[in-house]
């Protein structure tokens, strides 16, 4: 992909040392961010060796004794391994299944809406929740769902039902997680689809109109096929991060009553590592997740670049 006309490449065999000297101020500029990057991104990778060690705080990372794959086998053989994996995948796939169609429909509705004020209001308000933290979201959900003070339970009571404690019922909890995530992120995820919609050639719609296609058929045969590459790309990228089921959300919303249905890999790592001080075991689980995640990201990125002919994330 090197451009032949770029002036740097026209110089035959650039002298490496001279090139380095010529760029010395570039390296100087790089110095602080580079050192920072190594410290904050590579030292943790180095620290991850405690996954293969019996970590004890007073021995430190280097001083602790090697125990091979003990931590990993402990985790794979424990009963919570399958539960954690099941919960993590359930929430990840659930979020894709719910929020992807919602954000696609929302983007098409925003695109087709002819009332300027309505469109602008929905657009602005739909992006907003993305900027709220899950702590704030918990407060918002509390005002909505709480059995004593939530408006949803007021409605249930109004129709003669018994109030439900949504956040501590194992049946309701997954829905709270999936729907609150969809509510928070639908506007933000719609942005990329809106961008794709705005690049559709409007003459296609005109031609279809002359041929007698109605609005529904135009959405079905022009709009959706036109944004299909973007949909596939978003889907593939989401599959690349399938093991991230949303730590912050889960940590704020869950409670011991719903651990069986709410515990995902990240929350478990947090509790085992930082509350129960099983650093080695928790790091092993984190490392396991990291390696699977890396494979998935690389594969999905490969697929994206094959699908979109050469353009990829990296």
């Amino acid at each position: 992909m090197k451009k032949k006309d770029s002036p740097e490449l026209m110089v035959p065999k650039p002298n490496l040392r001279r090139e380095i000297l010529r760029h010395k101020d570039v390296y100087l500029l790089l110095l602080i961010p580079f050192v920072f990057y190594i410290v904050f991104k590579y030292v943790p990778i180095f620290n991850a060796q405690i996954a293969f060690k019996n970590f004890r705080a007073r021995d430190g990372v280097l001083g602790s004794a090697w125990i091979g794959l003990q931590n990993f086998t402990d985790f794979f053989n424990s009963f919570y391994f399958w539960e954690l994996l099941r919960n993590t995948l359930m929430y990840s796939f659930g979020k894709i299944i719910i929020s992807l169609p919602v954000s696609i429909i929302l983007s098409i509705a925003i695109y087709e809406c002819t009332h300027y004020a309505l469109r602008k209001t929905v657009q602005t308000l739909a992006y907003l929740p993305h900027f709220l933290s899950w702590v704030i979201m918990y407060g918002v959900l509390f005002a909505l769902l709480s059995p004593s003070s939530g408006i949803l339970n007021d409605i249930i009571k109004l129709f003669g039902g018994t109030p439900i404690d949504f956040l501590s019922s194992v049946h309701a909890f997954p829905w709270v997680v999936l729907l609150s995530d969809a509510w928070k992120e639908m506007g933000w995820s719609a942005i990329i689809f809106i961008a794709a919609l705005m690049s559709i050639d409007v003459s296609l719609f005109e031609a279809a109109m002359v041929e007698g296609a109605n609005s529904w058929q135009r959405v079905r045969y022009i709009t959706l096929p036109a944004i299909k590459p973007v949909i596939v790309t978003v889907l593939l990228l989401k599959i690349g991060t399938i093991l991230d089921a949303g730590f912050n959300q889960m940590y704020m919303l869950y409670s011991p009553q719903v651990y069986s249905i709410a515990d995902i890999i990240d929350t478990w790592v947090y509790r085992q590592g930082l509350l129960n001080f099983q650093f080695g075991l928790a790091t092993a689980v984190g490392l396991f997740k990291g390696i699977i995640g890396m494979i998935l990201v690389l594969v999905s990125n490969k697929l994206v670049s094959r699908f979109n002919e050469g353009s990829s994330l990296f």
Partner: protein
Amino acid sequence: MAEAKTKKERIHLKPKMHNKTVRPTRADRIFQICVDVFMVLMLIIILIPLWSTVTLSFRPNTYIGTYLQGMFLAPWDWSFDAYKALLGNNGFLMAFTNSCKILVGGVVCALLLTIPLAYVMSVKSMPGRKALTTIVLIPYIFDVGMIPAYLLVQNIGLMDHLAAVFLPGAISTYNVIIMRQFFDGIPAELKESARIDGCSEVQILLRIVMPLSKAIVMTIGLYYGVSFWNNFFNAMLYIQNSNLNPLPILLRNILMAAGMNEYVEVSAFGNAPIEAIKAASVFMSAIPMVIAYPFIQKYFTKGTLAGAVKG
């Protein structure tokens, strides 16, 4: 009239079609109605949770209706007791100050680190550029989890410093990639001519590239700002001293407290109902985001589009 018409055409996302010979059919009109109904429905779905929180925070102590009815409480019956109580509370003010420090310090640090790194990655002639890109990407793809990062912060003595909240996230690889893509798009001729005129790379960055990059710097600054303001996790891990607690931690403590007595620091909150205090602190935590949001909205839409289309 003509002017108004062109203005109206410009503001729609979907360009108006020119062919007016085909009249809309019944199906077209139903489609338009469905779109409008869907949009109104979305508006309601988005607004209800926000509105219920806001009205809850204005609830007077004497109010006896249900929470559902509370949503339709007339503004002249609103009580500001909860806000008065919060703003008169030392713990809250301290947490707000801490959050502001984290926000400002974090955004400044993050931009000072991210801009040079992204810029250097876009200098095509630099030897070792490929290696640098690989070094930057490896930790992005391979995430080792929270425990090794925790050990790092512990080992370098950042525990119980406000900097521990923002330094681990001060270079986000994703933001570096977006920014580099933007820098890559700046015409090489501009930089080359400055170079011929004797500018060093630092001068090129400051005088040529930065003035062209206002939108992307605002966008990335906003991303960082949001992530630092909302950061709850790092504060929970690294801050034990309650005087250093940022707002999200205090907010969580307030929200988790079932009654006033359970949470010592809210005991000075006066006579506002505890539900109202909770909702008011939610609203106060969100307010900097809500105020900054319209100003930066135009930038982030532009910025994400640039990143998204290229991505």
